[in-house]
């Protein structure tokens, strides 16, 4: 199993929803070893909350759950405008339920007892679909097949560079930064970045767009410095693709690409 860590799945965030404790505990261990990041929820309601907060790339869910069942949850997610692929794991194998699931865009249906090899293969095929276009365009396919540890190291390095950059140039460092490498993209969420000056401006629930515009300008004007700093730290050329500021949530969302 020399290729065990080199999977596309490392580039993905996965949400797993299951109400039964034992099953959730065991299966989440298996999934966690293979994916970039795993989020866990105990029912449909929690599932939706986690989905909105973490924006996963794949959802794996049980069907029969208290509070809100799997089908309901996916319907809600679809209503919010997401077409995220969903893998169902269920004890139900009647055709009506399966057809129902297909109608709301379920990608794969796995019947309990779960064959974990089959589940992993399914997840991989879903991952390949997700990256199909990106893989075609890219010159460096190896970036997509990254080892877990290497990936973590890279993410840590990027995190440090961005924190340093923001602190030095804006006067205030972010409270925390999440960095996630997804294929040839680097997704960055920098939280609580606003300076005292900016916080004062929005304290009366006004001027959000002004602050957002200024911060965007801040990243765009210093784009070259930021790119060089990160590229040197990780020994790869990267480009700033986009910066989006959400002043209400006090978050800067920055995307780079290799």
């Amino acid at each position, binding site marked *: 199993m020399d290729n065990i860590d080199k999977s596309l799945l490392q580039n993905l965030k996965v949400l797993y929803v299951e109400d039964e404790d*034992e*099953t959730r505990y065991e299966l989440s261990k*298996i999934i966690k070893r293979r994916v970039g990041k795993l989020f866990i929820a105990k029912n449909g309601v929690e599932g939706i909350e986690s989905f909105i907060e973490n924006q996963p790339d794949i959802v794996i869910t049980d069907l029969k759950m208290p509070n809100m069942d799997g089908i309901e949850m996916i319907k809600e997610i679809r209503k919010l405008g997401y077409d995220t692929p969903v893998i169902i794991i269920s*004890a139900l194998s009647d055709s009506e339920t399966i057809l129902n699931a297909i109608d709301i865009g379920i990608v794969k249906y796995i019947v*309990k007892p*779960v064959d974990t090899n089959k589940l992993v293969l399914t997840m991989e095929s879903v991952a390949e679909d997700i990256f199909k276009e990106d893989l075609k365009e890219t010159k460096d396919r190896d970036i997509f097949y990254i080892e877990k540890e290497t990936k973590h190291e890279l993410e840590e390095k990027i995190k440090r560079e961005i924190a340093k950059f923001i602190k030095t140039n804006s006067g205030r460092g972010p409270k925390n930064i999440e960095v996630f490498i997804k294929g040839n993209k680097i997704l960055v969420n920098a939280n609580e970045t606003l300076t005292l000056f900016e916080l004062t401006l929005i304290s009366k629930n006004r001027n959000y767009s002004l602050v957002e515009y200024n911060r965007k300008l801040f990243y765009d004007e210093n784009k070259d410095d930021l790119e060089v700093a990160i590229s040197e730290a990780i020994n790869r050329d990267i480009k700033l693709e986009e910066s989006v500021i959400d002043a209400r949530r006090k978050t800067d969302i920055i995307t780079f690409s290799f």
Partner: protein
Amino acid sequence: MKKIKPKQKNRIIKSRYQAIFENSVLGITITDEDGKILQANNRWLEMMGYKRKEVINENIMKFIAEDNRNADVGLIDKLMEDRVGSYDIERKYLRSDGKVFWARLFMTILDSEKKIKLGMIQDITNEKLEKEVLERSEKRFRNIVKEVASEISITDIDEKTNSKMALQIEKINIELENMFKKELEENRRKEAFIIYQARLAAMGEMIGNIAHQWRQPLNNLGLIIANIEDAYHYDELDDEYLNHSVGKCKKLIQKMSDTIDDFRDFFNPNSVKSNFSIRDSILSTLDLLEENLRFNSINVEFEYSEDLIGYGYSNQYLQSVFNIIKNSIDSLSITDRDNKTISISLSQDDNMATVDFKDNGIGFSKDIKEKIFDIYFTTKEGSKGTGLGLHITKTTIENNMNGSVEIIDTKIGANIRVSIPKATKEDHDGQYR
């Protein structure tokens, strides 16, 4: 030996004939040439839902569904013209409540001069198992009636023919009695078959339940084992990990084994009546149905301040409780309500220990309520219901245990009340399960 005079004998015969007429399992009418009803037996009135005075002198056609009135035109002509002695046909009847039912009609001429006709009908709407038995008895009936009919049509009776006829009718009577005995025997066999069938059905339910009960632990066992392999490949498998996982597997296997034991108890044929804990019977049934209840998000409220000790066959009681709760689950599983609940409460009086099973499911409509304990009656779609569960519940509790099973009217859902005799005082200290 005192010789019975033919006239007297005739009277006896007549009253016997009357008894057969009134107590027949078939609905019988006697109609004149135009189809006017001269006589109808109780069974016929019961089947059609009319009182006697409402049908006498009415035309029989009034009680036949409109689209079926011409169904026997050719046949009845042949009968009237004496070209056939009798015929039978499936007819569609209209009950007083507007409902339609199918019956097999057997028609023959009683009096060929006056064209008096005898019609016998058997409800075939629910015909399944009875079919075979019925066909046989019908054939026998037919022969007998033919003979009776041929004798009755003799209008001027002299002494000689009278005694000859009496003799013949006596013969018929003996045959009828024999037939009745055979019929009884047949019924007993049928009943045994139904019990056997119910047992098979219950076993099927059980197996379905084991599958249900096992699915989760089986799934988890598979996952734990997959995880051990996985942990090995990821270099995470140390002593602690292995021991922890093996411990969990053992627990799950024990749980699955317990499930089997529970189900085996269920089918243990204990043929001796004994004192047993009603609370424990209910609790172990709830255990068996645990997964099924969880799966359907059904909440069970079972309150007992003190136990009740009943007297009877504990496993039959267990099966009855199982049937009732399973029925509630099925009813709740097709409702959309949020707080699906089954509530079980115990009560007692001097002699009886009573359990009320209530649910907030779809309940029983009036006509379902009338038929709910009938054999083969089911409201479940497709092959999901056998129509045996509640029938056998009522039969076993009432016939084998001197108890009662009844439906209590409620606004929402269903309430089934089961009472069985309490343990007698001297037995009270004895052992019970």
